């Protein structure tokens, strides 16, 4: 086992333990989420959409479910379940789409579970979790139709997107919808920065669920992320000093 292997194991186990501990601590010291304008606007936009009989559309992106690009989609599926619970009574419940078959199945499962939890099982329709197209751009090409025919007024993009994400976000803007877009690809975030009304920068794409009345662990994980970031910064500073002094790393 090399040093890096040991380090990796240590990091994984340490993170898991820290996450559990923080979750347990959540009862006594609840996490305060920093107010993020985009998420506050999201709440309001969902309410408005439900009242106006318009739809919330959530996209799980054009990534895969089994690759390293699945993380934002996993986070998106959690957010999807929350939104489905909130919009279950609407006559136009949330619709989810993806650019990958497995992600569409995941979206359907998330929706079915959410409706079962709210007791609105009958509201579930397999067609509210859709695969729009199997390739990134075929996915984007299918969006304008779903956005207009479903009267989408809240357009959420939380998944892995490449450049097609910019088209997807802009289509929402054309529809005059509330657009909140996040991707795990930094390059796409730069495009969202210009094309979307609200952009989730950096790791913000992973915290949508926590901001939508997230579970204890979701909220606790924000604290973990903050702590880790601090630790990383400290490690970088210390490491730089050590390197400068000639200590091999």
């Amino acid at each position, binding site marked *: 086992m090399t040093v890096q292997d040991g380090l990796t194991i240590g990091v994984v186990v340490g993170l898991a333990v820290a996450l559990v501990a923080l979750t347990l601590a959540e009862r006594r010291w609840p996490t305060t989420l920093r107010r993020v304008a985009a998420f506050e606007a999201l709440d309001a936009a969902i309410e408005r959409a439900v*009242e106006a009989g318009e739809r919330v559309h959530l996209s799980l992106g054009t990534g*895969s479910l089994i690759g390293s690009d699945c993380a934002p989609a996993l986070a998106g599926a959690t957010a999807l379940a929350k939104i489905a619970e909130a919009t*279950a009574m609407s006559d136009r419940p949330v619709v989810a789409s993806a650019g990958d078959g497995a992600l569409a199945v995941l979206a359907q499962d998330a929706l079915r579970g959410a409706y079962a939890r709210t007791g609105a099982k009958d509201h579930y*329709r397999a067609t509210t979790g859709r695969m729009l197209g199997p390739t990134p751009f075929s996915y984007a090409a299918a969006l304008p139709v779903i956005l207009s025919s479903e009267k989408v007024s809240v357009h959420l993009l939380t998944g892995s997107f490449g450049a097609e994400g910019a088209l997807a976000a802009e289509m929402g803007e054309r529809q005059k919808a509330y657009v909140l877009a996040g991707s795990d690809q930094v390059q796409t975030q730069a495009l969202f920065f210009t094309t979307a009304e609200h952009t989730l920068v950096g790791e913000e794409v992973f915290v949508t669920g926590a901001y939508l009345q997230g579970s204890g662990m979701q909220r606790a994980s924000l604290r973990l992320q903050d702590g880790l970031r601090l630790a990383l910064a400290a490690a970088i500073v210390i490491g730089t000093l050590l390197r400068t002094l000639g200590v091999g790393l």
Partner: protein
Amino acid sequence: MAEIRCPMCSTLNQADAASCKLCGARLKPTGRLGTPSEEPGPEMRLPATGELPPWLARLRKDVTGRGQVPAEVPPEETPEPPSEESPDWLGGLRPADSEEEGPPEGEVPDWLAEAAPAAPATPAEPAEQGEGPVPDWLVRIRAKAQADTPAEEPADTPSAPAPTVEPTPPPTAAQPPASPPELAAEPTLGLPDWLLAARPDEAPRKAEAETPGEPSWLKEAGLDSSPELPHVQALIFEGDAPRTPVSDADVGPISVEVPDWMTELKAPPAPPPEGRPNLAPATLPAWLEAMRPVDTFRSVVEIEPEDDQTVEAAGPLAGLRGVLLAEPVMAMPRTPTAGGGRLEVTERQFAQAELLHRLVEEEQREAKPRPQARPRPPLLRWLVSVVLFVAAAVPTFAGGPAFPLPRLQPRELDVLASIVDGAPAGQPILLVFDYEAGYAGELEAVASPLIDHLLGRGLPLATLSTRPTGPPLAERLVAQVAARHGAVRNQDFVHLGYLSGGPTAVQLFAAAPTQAVFRGYLGPGGSPWLQPMLLNVHSLSDFGLVVVLTTGTEIARTWTEQTQPWLGGRPLVMVLSAGAEPLVRPYYEALQPKVQGILSGLPAAVSYELRLGQPGPAESRWNAFGLGLTAVEVFLIAGLLYGAAAWLLRGSRR
């Protein structure tokens, strides 16, 4: 199953628990009509099923004109009414004058008059004495209902849950039913009016009766929260109610939602229905309260599961199940007082009044309606489109203007060219085509000098892709370049085809290439590894050089990191879309580089073509590229200037 889920908070509870351990919500349906002794439960909860009953959904759809999820609309249904009719009574709203009273007797639909002979259709008075406490009429209703109906009802008929009676004064001084006993005696009382309306022969007559006799006193409802609020006349609404064939699945209990017609009611001048306009999407419906803390989460009416619903035993609806019962709605927290006027009030009227009341109450919480954005022609987009099209087309069609070709070669081009020159002869080169078909226009131009160089050296090429569309892209580009060198497919270059599994499979391939790819693309059949040029390839390091062509930083990173252990010191070269370069470059510039060569952007490609002395697609796009980028730069500068000017102007105005 040993556990049941609380409908309020989703906590799991023991199946036999009566109330939720977390939020205290009741988990069992409350009492039935047949057990009158049961006190109304203190709990008012969200419907257990929590769903918008289909009939209400349809009602809403009809009124609002908004479609429902298609699958939910039964095909046989031909809902008609509403958009034309609902407006009628809305449109007829005008300020009531205090003398004005309820609908004249003649306007009470015949069927109702017939059905309830004892109930005089007395007009309601806008009475002020609304604060009476417990409604004893309700007690009488119950007694009467029990006396009247049980004989006909199956003993086990489930009924509406025992409703809540709260002694709180009703927010409005409205006068509900003046003669409760008679009401209760009326067998149709518990039925939603629209159900009654479904009686074929009576419906038309009723409709006729309604329209002319617009209850003008109603108008006030739309204007303020005055005592008249409860006078919403359900009867009129019946015209709008969907006369659907009654099936048990369709008969839902009263929903806790505010239907859209209520929202419309709010708009002071009742809006014309066709317009369906600018409805303030504002009032917070109770079900939306679900998103709020638990206490506000309770609805007024408890709804039982469908199978618990009452089967109507008497009257024209005998045998139908799930019809609405009077009680739950009647018992909503309000206190009727003995007013001067007496009004025949059905539970629907009650429900509507209640909704209206809530609506008014919640008005404070209203969000402003989104201003309807007037569609403006997207002039900016048109302008940009035209300019960009022209900028890209002029050099293509007219040949000019000529931009100077790059004179200096980027440093990394030297490095790359020396890698290609140093690749061992005879060993195949692995080309990974990992870009979307859409980017072919860019990457083909950028990569073609490199492939030109490789084929020029006579190196055999093997292509691979982790995207289904990769192999045809590889064939497009390689065959095009190969034609110039007289190279032949399956002899000088081979397509390994599609590596399924995306990024996940990269590591599988790196570890054991021959086991990860089964069939080639456009090969002679059989395994591509049987091709002579690949016979000696058993591992990744048997390739002389690995070139990855991609637009995505993620893919580039995957190939960089996953193949590292298996490359055996063979160079890894990235051909990148211009957008991906900044994120990949750190791998190239690191103290221990993981990427040995990099080729990105049109200028580098043109330099490469110049170096090879072989003008190609990159050079042919150079002028258009220059003009296009210039146009974009102009737009960005214009945007900056516009922003600065607007900022200065606003500053000076202040």
